[in-house]
């Protein structure tokens, strides 16, 4: 992997060892400006270790770690408990790690749709509100690299979609790189450029489409029927068949472009039924 000026992070064959045990090993990870990289993997796979390695809070015991000079990181933690004894309002939280002007705070809160929460106490926010505030806090620093550790955990579906949209918007407007950690193996954000499937080492990596069909991924996370990497997909990861049905990257066929898992199974069921009726799905000549 040759590095160039747009590289924010470049890990080559990096590994971290603790107590004579490798937490992660053989990590190749490259994040360029404006690129979204998602790390997925089961618990204990070394996702956070890899992120820390990338950010530079831990050192590699082997391999090479390159970081762009003056890299500014904005970090969104997985969860954050704030002691009730600590009086903390949203607008104060925004300059937690660096001084920020009132204008910048205002803009950041507007961007995440939370202007009305500026003087609210953080302990009073709902899960979804708090995640948006944490995102605003990270972006107000104008980071070159936004790092998010399971940003949608414990957040309802609508907030989740909104958060993903926000992350995408931040990337689009600021051109920062994004490193996202997800333990939800089935959901990878739209516009993810690279997925890194991790289990102590890199099982597989590449575009979401290539990863989902990779035998290593399937071995680790199950066959596509039980673990479809499906919800947040690009339009071009499926093919419209002449009979109006849609063939997805994992080979399944359904009636619509964006089936969720439930629909997907439902379609399968119908499809099987068709076969019993003597129809088969390539009999599109009746169209």
């Amino acid at each position, binding site marked *: 992997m040759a590095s160039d000026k747009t590289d924010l992070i470049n890990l080559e064959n990096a590994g971290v060892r603790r107590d004579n045990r490798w937490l992660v090993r053989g990590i190749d990870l490259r994040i360029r400006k404006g690129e979204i990289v998602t790390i997925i993997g089961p618990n204990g796979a070394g996702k956070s270790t890899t992120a820390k390695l990338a950010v530079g809070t831990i050192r590699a015991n082997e391999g090479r770690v390159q970081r762009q000079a003056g890299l500014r*990181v904005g970090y969104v933690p997985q969860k954050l408990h*704030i002691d009730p004894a600590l009086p903390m*309002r949203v607008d104060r939280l925004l300059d937690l*790690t660096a001084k920020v002007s009132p204008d910048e705070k205002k803009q950041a809160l507007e961007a995440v749709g939370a202007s009305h929460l500026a003087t609210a106490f953080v302990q009073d926010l709902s899960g979804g509100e708090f995640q948006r505030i944490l995102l605003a806090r990270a972006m107000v620093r104008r980071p070159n690299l936004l790092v998010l550790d399971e940003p949608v955990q414990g957040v309802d579906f609508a907030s989740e979609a909104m958060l993903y949209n926000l992350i995408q918007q931040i990337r689009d407007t600021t051109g920062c790189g994004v490193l996202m950690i997800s333990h939800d193996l089935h959901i990878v954000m739209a516009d993810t450029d690279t997925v890194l499937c991790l289990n102590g080492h890199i099982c597989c990596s590449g575009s979401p489409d290539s990863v989902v069909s990779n035998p290593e991924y399937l071995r680790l996370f199950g066959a596509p029927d039980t673990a479809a990497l499906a919800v947040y997909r690009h339009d071009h990861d499926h093919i419209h068949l002449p009979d109006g049905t849609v063939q997805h990257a994992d080979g399944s066929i359904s009636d619509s472009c964006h089936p969720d898992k439930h629909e997907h199974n439902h379609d399968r069921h119908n499809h099987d039924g068709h076969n019993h009726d003597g129809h088969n799905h390539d009999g599109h000549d009746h169209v």
Partner: protein
Amino acid sequence: MGIITMGIITMGMIMFDDFFIRALFAGIGLAVIVGPLGCLIIWRKMAFFGDTLAHAALLGIALAILADVSSLIAVPFVTLAICIAIMVAKRTPSLSSDTILAILAHSTLALGLVLVSVTGGRNVDVNGLLFGDILSVDTTDLLVIYAGGGAILAIIVWQWRRLVAATLSPEIAEAEGLSPQRTEWLFMVLIALVVSIAVKLVGVLLITALMIIPAAAARRLVTSPEMMAVLASILGVIGVIAGLYGSAEFDTPSGPSIIVAGALLLLGLTFVPRRLSVANDSPAPYNHHNEAGHDPK
């Protein structure tokens, strides 16, 4: 010019001639320093840590008597050594940090009392060691409090953002390059130094109370960490003044009187209606969160 300076100095000397005035100024200086530190202790749930260092300070005093050195050197030496011992012991996962602190706190206190009895015999005022003797403060003590304490306060102000960030989320602080580990060390060292200064004034058993009561009293009246730190200092000063005048009036021991005054202040402020206390421009989220039934976490 020279005459005026001389005049001020003379006035000062006359003023500080009075043991009560010296005690008052010593207490006020200390209260101002411990305000922000007390807040940090509360936020970090480290009251027991402060207590451990305070107990260890007694060992420092005993060693000072034993080795015939100034307690200004021996006490910080011991408290800083205990800081390091705590950090090292924390890496031994077989005992919880709670247990480690309890062991260190009480064995240093016990060892200190044993050493004091061996060396000083009956000449040492054990009561004064345990509960302080603020009325015996001399001008050197005042100098230490205002010069040393001023330096500590300056460091706190300078490092404030990092201290708060490391308290709120070491994870964020670390990822964004603030090295919270280093900040935690700094915090522990500051506590050790303040304890060393405070031990003579309020004694090893009351230092923690002096640090956390004003901070706790300030909590309900403020909306930001900075406000809480400043108000804790102010309430601490009020407690010191009320406690000292109270002790003179009722002929009670000065150290405990200061703590009692602080505790009464805390109790009184607890009954201030919330509407009058925490800024009432706080918007909807209270209602909002009740309606939505979210877990505020």
